[in-house]
């Protein structure tokens, strides 16, 4: 009987302990609202979209729409969704786009977009807003044609311009009907006026654009310029280094509670024996 009771206590205690241990680790499920770039040790696969290291990064997936917000619009686009992975090493960040495109074409392209500074910017090239003072956007534009990534800014339609200082590197690789394009840059640059600054732990806005540069029979490109697949703003976060202070405070609190119990019970026992 006593053994059974002991077992019961052990089981209940174990259950409670395991709840306490599992629950804090189980973070929010991978909702496709945010790209989370994990903090990693060692070199980033900054110019290798097919590196095995990317398999360890969990992807977020975002749907893409034909660009219908301003002329010239497009009714239907090739790329319906994009998978996004990220990682950083505390100094640099690498972001990998992966999407299905049935043909590899010289004019295929993809871009990331960020807000610059504290002012909100409209996802369509930071165009002016009637009642809110907006800021510029920073666009990282990869083109298959030259294999390069252009670091650009815009604040309104027709203002898109390459920066004097180019900070973004990367590479695109086409395999089995899929484009994998990696973009990389240092988390922060000195140029706060033009470049997005990425601080680990902070959520920032990110948007995507993809062009299928296939040549149609008419000789025109299927998608180019404002005729592209787009998303509106989602979130990106470079994950902060692990913070164990919560555990430390919990252990301290448990110690205090045990001490409190000890003092109270000793006092009670003394009071009764007196």
């Amino acid at each position, binding site marked *: 009987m006593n053994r059974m009771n002991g077992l019961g206590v052990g089981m209940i205690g174990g259950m409670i302990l395991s709840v306490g241990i599992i629950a804090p680790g189980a973070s929010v499920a991978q909702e496709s609202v945010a790209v989370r770039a994990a903090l990693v040790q060692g070199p980033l696969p900054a110019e290798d979209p097919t590196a095995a290291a990317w398999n360890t990064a969990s992807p977020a997936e975002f749907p893409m729409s034909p660009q219908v917000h301003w002329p010239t619009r497009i009714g239907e686009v090739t790329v319906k969704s994009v998978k996004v992975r990220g990682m950083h090493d505390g100094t640099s960040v690498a972001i990998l786009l992966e999407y299905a495109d049935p043909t590899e074409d010289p004019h295929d392209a993809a871009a990331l977009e960020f807000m610059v500074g504290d002012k909100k910017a409209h996802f369509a090239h930071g165009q002016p807003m009637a009642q809110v003072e907006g800021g510029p956007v920073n666009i990282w534009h990869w083109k298959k044609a030259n294999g390069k990534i252009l670091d650009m800014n815009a604040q309104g339609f027709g203002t898109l311009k390459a920066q004097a200082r180019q900070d973004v590197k990367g590479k695109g690789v086409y395999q089995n009907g899929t484009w994998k394009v990696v973009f990389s840059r240092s988390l922060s640059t000195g140029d706060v006026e033009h470049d997005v600054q990425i601080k680990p732990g902070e959520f920032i806005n990110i948007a995507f654009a993809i062009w299928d540069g296939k040549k149609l029979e008419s000789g025109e490109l299927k998608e180019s310029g404002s005729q592209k697949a787009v998303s509106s703003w989602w979130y990106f976060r470079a994950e902060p280094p692990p913070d164990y202070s919560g555990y430390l405070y919990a*252990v301290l609190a448990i110690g205090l509670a045990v001490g409190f*119990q000890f003092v109270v019970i000793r006092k*009670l026992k003394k009071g009764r024996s007196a």
Partner: protein
Amino acid sequence: MKAGLLGKVGIALKKGGVLLDKGGVLAKGVVLVVGMYLFLKFILPLVTAPLPANLIFLYLALAVAGIIIFGTLSSESTEEFFGPIVRFLSGERQTGPMKIARLLVLVLFPLLVGWQTYTNTVPSDAPPAENRTIHPAPPGEFVGLSNPIPNTPENVMMGKGLFAAFCSPCHGGNFDGKGIASKGFDPPPANFVDPGTIAQLQESYLFWRIKKGGVGLPVEGMPWKSAMPRWELELPDEWVWKIIMGEYDGAHQKPRTWE
């Protein structure tokens, strides 16, 4: 059968009453608090709206304070009230289940304190909460305008045609917000069939939203996220009014009026 069951319940209640009498102020207090909790949490919501958790906590805290005051009115009642607690915690002459219960309390209490501390100090890793106002107030010049286009079958038909050409890629051929271009945008295009959208609004409001688009929203509407075009740059007012007519007719809704 029914009488038997009732009888049994009666006996059980009587037994409980006897136990309560024996248990004294403390046991009565515990029963009262538990009973109150069950009543506030489960029985009261049957007749009215559920109470918020912090209000229930406040009621129970008041009850506990009252019980402690009542239990400690005299020195005898104080002894009667605290006696069982003191005996339980000091663990004298305890055997079997009581001993285990005491051990459990002594182990669980510090763990609970630790857990509370942990959950209150750990930083959140969720994206920022967004309190976007879906239908913010329009600028003054767009309040109270009435549709100047006569509501004839021809005009409604034309409005639906314009809707199909300019609006349906996002808002959908069925006016349900599920157009071919709707998926990549957050917030999603409005669903006009939903009684919470255009049925709650005046035609004047729609005229503002169509003409000025997403970028015309005030800050609480988060204009930087909206994909709604600023149609005043591309469509004449007359078309916008006709589109509004076609939208209400197609979604089987009526504009809100103040009559």
